[in-house]
């Protein structure tokens, strides 16, 4: 076993650990938004580390480029998916964890078209709407 294989093995294991942790987080976290946190961040990092391991162990231009492209598309799509799921959940009125402290988005949805309405101005400190 040489150094390259050792480094690649460590990266693979670390990546797998991050993916596992993100799966546990999806089960453990109390509401849909926090579950999105767990799924997006640790999952993307885990997949990225595994792709890094693949490009190190093969050491070929084609595979390195493809790993980069896969990682790039993950970075592009994972947050968009989390954003869309979080937004849909919010709009559908999925309840937040009871310890959610502050919700500055509450009451801002325009019921007609589903976008936050009346928002030309920046939100000021006094605008905080208490969580019911």
């Amino acid at each position, binding site marked *: 076993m040489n150094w390259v294989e050792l480094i690649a093995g460590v990266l693979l294991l670390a990546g797998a*650990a*991050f993916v596992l*942790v*993100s799966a*546990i*987080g999806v089960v*453990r*976290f*109390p*509401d849909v*938004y*926090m579950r*999105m*946190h*767990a799924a*997006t*961040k*640790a999952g*993307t*990092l*885990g997949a*990225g580390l595994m792709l890094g391991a693949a490009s190190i162990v093969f050491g070929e*231009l084609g595979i*390195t*480029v493809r790993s980069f492209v896969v990682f790039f598309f993950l*970075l*592009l799509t*994972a*947050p*968009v998916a*989390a*954003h869309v799921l*979080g*937004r849909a959940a*919010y709009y559908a009125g999925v309840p*937040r*964890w009871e*310890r*959610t*402290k*502050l*919700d*500055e*988005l*509450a009451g*801002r949805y*325009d019921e007609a078209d589903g*976008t*936050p*309405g009346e*928002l*030309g*101005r*920046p*939100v000021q*400190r006094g*605008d*905080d709407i208490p969580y019911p």
Partner: protein
Amino acid sequence: MSLLGLHLGMAVLWAMATGSLTFPSLLMGIFVGGGVLHLLGPVLGDPRYGIRFYRAIALAFFFLWELFASGIRVAIDVLRPTLSFTPAVVAVPLELRNEAAIVLLANMVSLTPGTLSIDLSEDRSCLYVHTMYGEDPEAARQAIKHDFEERIQEVFR
């Protein structure tokens, strides 16, 4: 951004001139091209291109570091026996006007520690962010503006 094609062309040219179309030589070509365009920028009508290019590289590395930190932090939070967060949905007023820049900001926010972008106001002046560490909402707002928005603005200006 009009010089981006020229930049990529220079990188390929560099790789071909050195006789090896490999990843390291392409990377080298990109950096040499960045230096050349930094010098030629004023002549070619984009005097800030070189600076923006190096800011973009710095932003990419900063982001990769934040992604790593964020993975570690989520892992610690998941494995901790008690859940001790104060989540909050915070409104972040945006200075950015470029649509691509706002997409970049929303994606970066979602992939960095404790924050997730939930929605954007209709007039694109305000990003709503869910944070896991919302003890001090004002601090969370300032962190996003200072860490990401200012850096992205430097790249797109």
